[in-house]
């Protein structure tokens, strides 16, 4: 069955008159966009402007009087950046696939009226609030022989419990008629999930793929604790030593030689841009899935 666009067109054209509401709406949305772009533009500026010149223009610069690329050169010359990229990409891809697989299967299962559903739901929500803390966790990771491996960077993440619950609720909200008719045709649970439920949930799946990917991409805590060799460091840990150390260091008086070189603002900003860019580029690919509508027409057939 093909979507009949003729039905939509009259509606679209009728509303195509640009009313007062549209003007206010556009004005607001554009203004909000500008409010976001300006500081963002500033970050880019700092990365390419000599620190002294930027300081003289504090927050008032629209275009740099002088552009330097030294910060990017320095950033990319660091071997850790490259191994960091490699590790982060592996973690993000494997981790996101693993997270999504576990989440989808469990989310679908939870929509069923099996015995023990309520208990299992409770057991899933409970650890969202109660955890044993660092020491038993560290000992567990140690016992599992995961210390200083790349696996420790995504295996323990399992599922994000909130995402699981949201997806499960969404699955449950889909019309049962679809599923029932498939079941009459003798489809198994797996087939129903993959052929009916998932295609109808694409926007949501894209959303949570993105959410998971960004989570995995930004992760540093497990690596900080459990990775003991810098060659296994994800990108975020490489960057944290550049950016955050400066802040912690400045909060206390540190005499002596441990005081590391303070990275200039250029380097800080350029490394931030370097770390964000891949994720921001992934975004438009997934965006199409949650900006366009779906048709649940099959129920009528």
């Amino acid at each position, binding site marked *: *069955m093909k979507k009949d666009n003729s039905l939509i067109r009259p509606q679209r054209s009728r509303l195509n008159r640009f009313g007062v509401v549209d003007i206010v709406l556009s004005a607001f949305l554009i203004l909000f966009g500008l409010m976001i772009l300006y500081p963002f533009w500033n970050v880019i500026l700092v990365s390419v402007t000599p*620190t*002294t010149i930027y*300081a*003289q223009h504090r927050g008032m610069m629209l275009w740099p009087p002088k552009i330097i690329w030294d910060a990017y050169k*320095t950033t990319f*010359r*660091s*071997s*850790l950046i490259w*191994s960091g*990229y490699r590790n982060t*990409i*592996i973690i*993000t*891809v*494997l981790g996101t*696939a693993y997270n999504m697989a576990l989440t989808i299967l469990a989310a679908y299962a939870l929509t069923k009226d099996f015995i023990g559903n309520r208990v299992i739901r409770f057991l899933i929500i409970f650890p969202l609030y109660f955890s044993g803390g*660092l*020491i038993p966790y*560290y*000992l567990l990771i*140690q016992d599992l*022989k995961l210390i*200083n*491996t*790349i696996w420790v960077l995504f295996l323990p993440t399992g599922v994000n419990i909130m995402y699981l619950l949201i997806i499960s609720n969404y699955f449950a909200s889909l019309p049962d008629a679809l599923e029932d008719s498939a079941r009459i045709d003798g489809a198994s649970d797996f087939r129903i999930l993959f052929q*009916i439920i998932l*295609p*109808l949930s*694409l926007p949501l*799946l*894209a959303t949570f793929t993105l959410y998971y990917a960004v989570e995995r991409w930004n992760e540093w805590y497990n690596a*900080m604790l459990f990775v*003991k*060799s*810098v*060659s*296994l*460091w994800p990108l975020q840990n490489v960057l*944290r*030593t550049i950016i*955050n*150390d400066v*802040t*912690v*260091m*400045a909060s206390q*008086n540190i005499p*002596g*030689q*441990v005081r*590391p*070189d*303070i990275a200039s603002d250029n380097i800080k900003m350029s490394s931030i841009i370097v770390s964000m860019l891949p994720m921001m580029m992934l975004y438009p*690919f*997934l965006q199409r*899935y949650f900006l366009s509508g779906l048709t649940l*027409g*099959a129920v009528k057939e």
Partner: protein
Amino acid sequence: MIMRNAKRTLAFLLTVFLLALTAACGGTPATTAAPETTRAAETTKAAEKTEAPETDAPETDAPETDAPETDAPETDAPETEAPAAGYETPIRVSMNVMDAEKNGIDARAEFVEEKFNLTFDYLPVSWGDWNEKIRTWINTGDTPDLIWWDLKGATAWEYQSWARQGAFTAFSDEDFANRPQLQEIYETAESIDALRVDGTLYAWPSLRDNPPEAQNCYTSNWCYRRDWAQEVGLYKEDDIYTFEEWEELIAAVLDAGLAQAGLVMPPWGFPHAAVLFISDPPAEGNETCSYIIDPDTGKYIWPPATDAYVAGVKKTYDMYQAGLIYRDNMSFKASENQDMIQAGQAFATYNVTGSLNTWTADMIKDGTIEKREDFGPAIVSGIDGTWYMTQTEDYWTVTALSKDIDPEAKNRVLDFWDWIITDEGRMVRNFGIEGTDWNWADNEQGFELLWDFDEATKDYISPYAETRFNEATPAENSRVIVPPGSVTYQYDERDRVWAAFASGTPKSAIKPFDYQVSFLSAENKDQFGSFNVEAKAKLNELIAQPDIDIEAEWRAWTDSMAPDVQKVLDELNSLLID
């Protein structure tokens, strides 16, 4: 319809799959870093991995901060003779360090490896996670062989508690008997006693190695724009100012529109460096307050409640409200004070005497000043007319031995520590290999340096990364060996400051460090410390509010804290003064 949606699912899965593929091509190898049985083997592998990419990095000629680690190190280690007697078995020890990726991969490390048959496996820590990692490691028993950390009085109770529970291997008198360098420290360093737990030593201090006249104070003072002081006509000979003259000078510079900001401070020193650090009200080790003995009663008291401290608070308030202290200093998180000085926006900042060489070089490069002498240390007396320096611990970090360390490894490490502070050890640590990097010579410094010399900055270009066995060896922030021909500005200025301090004009005094108070562990003291976090917060809160009676507000606060403070004072008085 289902077909259509199924196609979209397929497209979606395909996108994900393609992304996966791209990634997989990029770096499958790393996923195979499977858990190994011995930690040593694991870290070796890691070390090899870090090494690899660095060697094939393009030869760069950029003289920036990250000096190419590629040139000299790998190839030429001249010392090729077999390890000395007693060092036949190779030893590997793990240790946590800063900049782990830069450590242990140059000619200096190779030299040590050959000389002592000793290899270090470096585990990374950074400022943000150092203490957290140490805590986790010790609490789970998964420590490196050498535990290097930033032990301060405020957390000394943890060290004492861990030592009592057997987390470390103790040091004994025999450990130092045949090691003259270590023996000297063991006998003379004040902190050795403070670091003993029930009479046994569990942590070895890395001394600050200050010149004797500094008496373990570090050179903390204001550095200011001399050229601006001259421009407003208030410059004082030898940079000596009374507090009133100093205030007048800041105001004049601001009025003349030379600077946007008067005083700017690093976040840890704000706003105490303006008045309290340099005046009578006691602040120990540049903490905002500590406990001191009242000379009249012989009992411990809490400084923030004293008249002198209140006067300091009032002065700070007035200066902040008058704009002499830069208002947004309150929001500084990192090196904003440095940025403002280098951009020529601020007049003076605190505690940079030890880095004057690089600061002034950058300021000249940016066109902020014309010559190095335009920015230098000021000698400012406190509001009570005396010039104060603050004493600290005599060490900057400590290293403890894991409870599981092999006795032979311990011996080897101590041999290494003993050697690294000999003259030869210092030269290797600072400059590299004799014959390749430097030679003994008959000049004032006693050696010549063979590194490339940059005529523009009057400095040598080091082929090594900045780190140099910093852990477990003394900091040389005062007895730095200056290579012949390089810039000596910061050392000259520091010596001048200390000479003035020793001369007694202006009148000078030291705020002493009290190991007993600092290292005491007791229930309330462990919980509250010296309330310095609270005192700092309160002072900041109050100075930002216009039109308040600052003295009354401050006294109201100290009164409100009195019950809790008294609990700690009672502990100190009963445990330290019997």
